């Protein structure tokens, strides 16, 4: 329907407007109406979060829906940290963001680096047992985290590394994200063999081929994975809640829970402060998403369409 209508209209030989013009317009209007409606459902909670974060406590429970805070108090974003420091001295904005970034960046680099090596090994070399191991790797996606959680906790306890960032950072060097290996393997498989063979004839070794030929070629997928991995580690809650117990060492996700449990208990939950924290936690990932949305969406699509 749509294709016919548009081709007819763009054809200069058929200047006369085609008869199904009116239903076509109604149809288009209906489509946009539905799209806008869905868009509103998506965006309203975001707007409400930001709006709440700028309100005074007495604007919270008015029984009306006001999206524009009056007066707007950006100071909530500073005050929330003063409240936190009053309970746990040293729990400052800089410290908590630092913790979150420390965990996120180390885990992200470990993940990308190890996943690209493993994917390289799974895609460009022939060896016996390859498909079996790759199948096993994909099967691990099904294991619920809760099954491995108790034993993992016991391992780190045995190593004396509870309440450190170790459990959240360096295990990433062992390619803990099967999805990322899978995505990169798909990409590696699409690279023509001749490139490698030419380099081998020129006397390059595996490390050189990987670094100078493969990595530049898979740059788009590396970027996609970097973005996905940053988001996943920044948002991580299940890992830190298990291993980190000192409030000053909390990443943002735990700091939010800490605020919720210690300062927002009782009759009047301090939603303006909690939404300010939620906005702070969301802003970097959202910004990254807007900047790299192409990579984000493509990264996911490789898995879905080629899977």
């Amino acid at each position, binding site marked *: *329907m*749509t*294709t016919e209508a*548009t081709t007819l209209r763009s054809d200069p030989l058929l200047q006369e407007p085609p008869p199904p013009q009116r239903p076509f317009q109604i149809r288009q209007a209906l*489509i946009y109406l539905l799209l806008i409606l*869905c868009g509103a459902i*998506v965006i309203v*909670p*975001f707007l409400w979060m930001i709006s709440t974060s700028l309100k005074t406590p007495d604007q919270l429970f008015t029984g009306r*829906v006001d999206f524009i805070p009056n007066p707007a108090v950006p100071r909530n974003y500073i005050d929330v940290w003063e409240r936190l420091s009053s309970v*746990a001295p040293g729990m400052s904005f800089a410290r908590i963001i630092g913790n979150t970034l420390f965990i996120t960046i180390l885990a992200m680099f470990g993940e990308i680096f*190890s996943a690209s*090596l493993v994917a*390289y090994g*799974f895609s460009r*070399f*022939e*060896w*016996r047992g390859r498909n079996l*191991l790759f199948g096993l790797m994909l099967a691990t*996606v099904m*294991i*619920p985290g*809760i099954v*491995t*959680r*108790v*034993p993992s*906790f*016991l391992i780190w*306890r045995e190593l004396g590394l509870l309440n450190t*960032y170790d459990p959240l*950072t*360096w*295990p990433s*060097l*062992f390619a803990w994200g099967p999805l990322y*290996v899978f995505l990169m393997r798909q990409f590696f498989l699409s690279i023509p063999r001749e490139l490698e063979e030419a380099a081998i004839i020129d006397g390059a070794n*595996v490390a050189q081929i990987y670094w100078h030929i493969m990595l530049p070629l898979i740059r788009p997928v590396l970027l996609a994975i970097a973005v996905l991995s940053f988001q996943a580690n920044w*948002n991580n*809650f299940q890992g830190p809640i*298990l291993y980190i117990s*000192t*409030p*000053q*060492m909390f990443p943002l*996700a735990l700091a*939010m*829970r800490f605020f*919720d449990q210690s300062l927002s208990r009782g009759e009047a*939950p301090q939603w303006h402060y909690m*939404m300010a924290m*939620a906005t702070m*936690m969301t802003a970097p*990932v959202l910004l990254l998403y807007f900047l790299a949305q192409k990579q*984000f969406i493509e990264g996911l*699509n490789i898995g*879905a*369409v080629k*899977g």
Partner: protein
Amino acid sequence: MTTDPGALNTYLPTLIRYILVAIGVGVIMIIVYRVQIALGVKREAATGRALVTPWVIGFLVFNVFTIGTSLYLSFTEYNLFRPPEWIGLGNYQELFDVSFGTLESREQRSSDVLARRHSEIIRVEIGDGGFVFGARAASFWRSMRLTLVYAFVSVPLGLAGALGVALLLNQKVKGLGFWRVLYYMPAVLPAVATALLWRWMFSQSGIINTLTQPIWRLTTNEPPRWFTDANLALPAFVIIGLWGVFGANSVILLAGLKGIPQELYEAASIDGAGNWAKFRHVTIPMLSPALFYNLVTSTIAALQIFELAAFIQTPESVGTFVNWLIYQEAFTLRNMGMASAMAWILLLIILALTALIFRSSEFWVFYQGQREKA
């Protein structure tokens, strides 16, 4: 509360160990390569195996060993302070200590089978009679019920919604990039923020009760208490779940729709197929691999919900998401053995459901000219 060792003292040791481990991984890879060469393995195979070594180590330690340990612990009683005590099937016996009963009359509130230590999980009344299902580990089965019903409701609804939006976006709309970015946004939001934001919106004087005031005013004068009402908690969770995923899933399905060759539709038109026939016989089969992928990933994700339960408290009669319940059993109550048994039941349920979906895929998933398995 433990004392703060200071920023530097928390970052630096981890950073040093991170670097040492990275070097160690490199050394191990070289050793794996050298050993194979010494054994006369071809260079290509030796390199390939050396490259996947990091994952193999991680797999052995963080998957094989932990799963084995978890299975062992599920047969023990263990509270961290004393060594695990073998109790055989004790934990499972307690979990499966369930009973069914029939209700003879309406008045029979707790039937005989549930009289002693079992509490009621499901009660169905048909006319004057009915039946009732109870268990000793009532909170576990209540939470399992909540989690499973949540998955069974939210996954198909989410998939249908995603498909609907993907079809809309595929209608040659202007500003496709804009819509895509917009719809995908909820999937970027941290789960922690999502949980808090929706708890606020669903709170008693929150935005949702304010907006729906004309509706609930018709029946009661009390604003609904979403998460404490046994009938409303599940719908509220489903709404949150749908908001979080339908946009992202529709973006994935859209890519699948774009990949359907236009000729197929033209051929169908020539054969006299209407819109519905085209949808049924071209779109759905061609999109089935993407639908399948979505179905598998969203089912697994729905059964692993954690953050929502961690931030939104529900009353005992509603239960909570089973992952959170298991977490509490292990780390709040310190019943590591019981928690492991619960986790294993969840694992088996997930495996069974996934196997079912894979089995069913033979009948409805269509791979174009490929013999490759998904």
